């Protein structure tokens, strides 16, 4: 995957937050050239508290986009908007050629959007195995589920030893591994990972990044939020800089490297 083709849906200039409404969207390009995921002038809020102000982001097919920004910039909110957990107050979300703005979270998941939220996002009362079995599609039968489980245990051998243990009793890092493992059970079209490396040991982070590179090569696009800018940049093709709910800059990783590392608060 070459970084930074000029024609893959990124505009290099700063976004125009709060500017004129997204009046004339460009005519939809041919399906396989169109980005896999596209946010267009997305505004989002938590009740009365506004978090995103006209964010436009695109994730091209088979590429990795890193979402960077200081604390409270709205990175997690972008991830939640993509998965439908937080509704947009205006703007559109397009995925794989269709408008998913009003599509429910579980339907988006079926369309191929997987999401590993930040923190210990596991079902703490279920066992490790049950946590992994839940997302496995029931229509594929037990054998396929078992195979998917084995794959997950291969990626995270530490979990294999604890397959019948309740997830709530795992250590913080193990829980983090489990939530990553459960999104990888079924390779999605788009994988959104929030705070990828938080709470993981350096060795584990390395292997996670290897796994991510592997599934990227297998055809999955990634949208990752990562505090370790260097690591993020090593995997990413594109970088989006977010601050105070607005896109400050976005572009191919080469152009963004200097800027991203010098940004205050990161």
């Amino acid at each position, binding site marked *: 995957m070459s970084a930074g083709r000029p024609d893959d849906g990124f505009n290099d200039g700063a976004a125009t937050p709060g500017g004129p409404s997204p009046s004339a969207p460009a005519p939809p390009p041919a399906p396989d050239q169109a980005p896999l995921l596209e946010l267009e002038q997305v505004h989002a809020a938590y*009740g009365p*508290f506004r978090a995103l102000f006209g964010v436009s982001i695109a994730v091209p097919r088979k590429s990795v986009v890193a979402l960077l920004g200081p604390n409270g910039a709205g990175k997690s909110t972008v991830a939640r908007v993509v998965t439908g957990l937080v509704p947009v107050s205006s703007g559109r979300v397009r995925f794989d050629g269709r408008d998913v703005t009003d599509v429910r979270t*579980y339907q988006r998941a*079926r369309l191929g959007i997987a999401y590993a*939220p930040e923190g210990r996002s*596991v*079902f703490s009362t279920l066992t490790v195995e049950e946590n992994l*079995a*839940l997302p496995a599609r029931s229509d594929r039968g037990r054998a396929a589920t078992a195979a998917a489980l084995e794959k997950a245990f291969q990626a995270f051998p530490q979990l294999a030893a604890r397959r019948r243990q309740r997830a709530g009793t795992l250590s913080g890092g193990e829980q983090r591994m489990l939530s990553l493992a459960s999104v990888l059970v079924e390779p999605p079209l788009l994988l959104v990972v929030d705070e990828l490396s938080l709470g993981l040991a350096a060795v584990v982070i390395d292997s996670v990044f290897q796994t991510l590179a592997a599934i990227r090569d297998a055809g999955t696009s990634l949208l990752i939020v990562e505090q370790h800018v260097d690591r993020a940049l090593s995997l990413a093709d594109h970088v989006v800089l977010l601050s105070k709910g607005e896109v400050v800059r976005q572009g191919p990783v080469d152009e963004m490297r200097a800027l991203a590392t010098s940004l205050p608060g990161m």
Partner: protein
Amino acid sequence: MSQFLIYAIPGLPYGCVFALVGVCLVLTYQTSGMFNLAFGAQAYVSAVIFYTTVEDHHWPLWLAAVFSVLVVGPLLGIALDRLLYRYMRASTTTVKLITAIGLSIGVPSIVDFFFGSSEKLNPPSIAPHAAHTYHLGSYYLDGNGLFTVVVTVVLVVGLGLLFRFTAVGLRMRAVVESPRMVQLAGISSERVSMLAWILSSMITALAGLMLAPIYHDVDVNNFNLVLVTSIAAAAIGGMSNLPLTLAGGLLLGVGQQVLAGYLPLNSILAEGLRPSFPFIVLVAVLLLSPAVRRGRSAPDPLSGCDPPPPPLAASLRGAGLDRVSRVGLPVFVVAVMYVTLFQLSEHYLGLMTEVAIYSIIFLSFTVVTGFSGQISLCQMTFAGFGAFTAGQLATDHGWPFLVAMVAGGFVAAVCGAVVALPALRLGGLYLALATLAFAVMADEFLFPLNDIGGGEAGVDVPRPVLGPIDFGADRSFFLLCFAILVLVSFVVILIRKGTIGTYLAAMRGSEVAASSIGINLTRAKITVFALSAGIAGIGGALLASQVQHADSESFVYQYSLVFVVLVLTTGARTVEGAINASLAYVAIPEILSHFGTLSVLEFALFGFGTIAYVKHPEGILEFQKRSSIRKFNQLRARMKHRQDRPLIHGDDSGPGGAESGGRAPGIAGEVAGLSGAGDVGD
């Protein structure tokens, strides 16, 4: 041992039903967050339909049973889930509880409207050989009992297998923890919850069919009593553990029978034990069970997606409007007084007196629910304690009534403090359930006692006499009640503006923050609970004094349920809200009584008022007032060409949300729906 079994075995069917209902409660509570206090109503629907189809339409038993258990039950569950519960996932505990109570009041009233409210005695049993007695050595069980035991065993084992080993069961367990994470796995959490509702509605319907023959009557009250015991079973299971709930149910059913068997026949203890058992067990669980004291163990990891609960709003009313109401209110009051005293007939004078008295009782809800966000389901029981104390003291001991009334209020307050003590720290749901169990215990055991409620004959309660003034005449009694109402209103306002009110306001914002600055939450809550019980006690004494009589039927728990729904739907935070609720309570039956059969629907009207409550948890009245204030302010702003609209969006984002600016949000989610207005000035 054999003696024990002779007592224990007849308790088994009861225990099984308690267990089954307890399991249903846990199932729906866990998968949808609704504690189904409408169980009795749901069971009633199926039992009545079964009864009617068999007795009136001569359907074969099996067909009627299949129809009412497999068709009516699930349909009702689906309807409730789709039309109501689905939209309440994010609502507060209070809203959910009140909605369920509203249904438990409204649904039976609708059923009676369609199927007639005549007694439905000796319902047929669905058990094969129901009347046959099965002997096992010297122990025996009748066919219906045996059937109940077998069905329970089959169902519970089936449910256990479903939960443990199937994909659906796995999803149900997962939804418990986080519906959103289930969605992320590509599964419709709503469908899972609906499935749980269907399942539990079927079991509920079946329980209704099995229970009716045990009581020889299809009566919603029996179902509600079973519900109360099952609540205790669910509490033993910590509201989450199915095997423990099962064990709890069996223990309660068998325990009641065994204890009643060993105690001397017809003694007070034997009589009182059965109805008191749920309350005693519930209190014991609240005090002792570590699982319950810990509360819900696993919080939703994705709760960060929710906006914070609405912050406390400052006074919403402009000074202009305040001035208008300061002049307007006295004028209005004087006008009402004049008309009531000099224009109305005896009948309407009596009704107006009732309005004043019920307003006093309803103000007790304002204090406990409106100010401190707790739900009490036994305010009428406190009113009863007030009335009986006042009556006994005045009639038997010759105390002046007004003094006796105050003493009644005091006794009620003490009762309130005692009841609230074990449950207060746990808050919301547990307090509501404990008060409900207490109300049932009082109705069934305490109030019928000679020393409290005067037994069969009841207690005579005189009209007050104050020195030379005799309030025996209706007009003067009305004046007295009105004066007391004014007095109590001032007390209520003082509570809100005083130290306790400030504490409570802080507490509603954030319990953690409030306790961190040294506010003793438990003491504040208990004080408020006791005050509220005291106000209810005074109201109860007046209520009894109006008709000069009170007996154990005068203060049954059903009143408390209706009242809590009524007051919360009209607006629990203001004196005005309580008075309006009281007006509605007195006026609506009066109006309906002119329409013959429609009067059955009175409770349906009150009950389904809760649907409005779901949308406007601050109360209909409060909502109307606020939206008119908002419009008024907008109009004024437009006239002044000022652009001082707050820089946050959200036009109607819940109580106090939009108006409050970007103030720091509180942490406490529990009472979010109630945490809006520190309420308009008066």
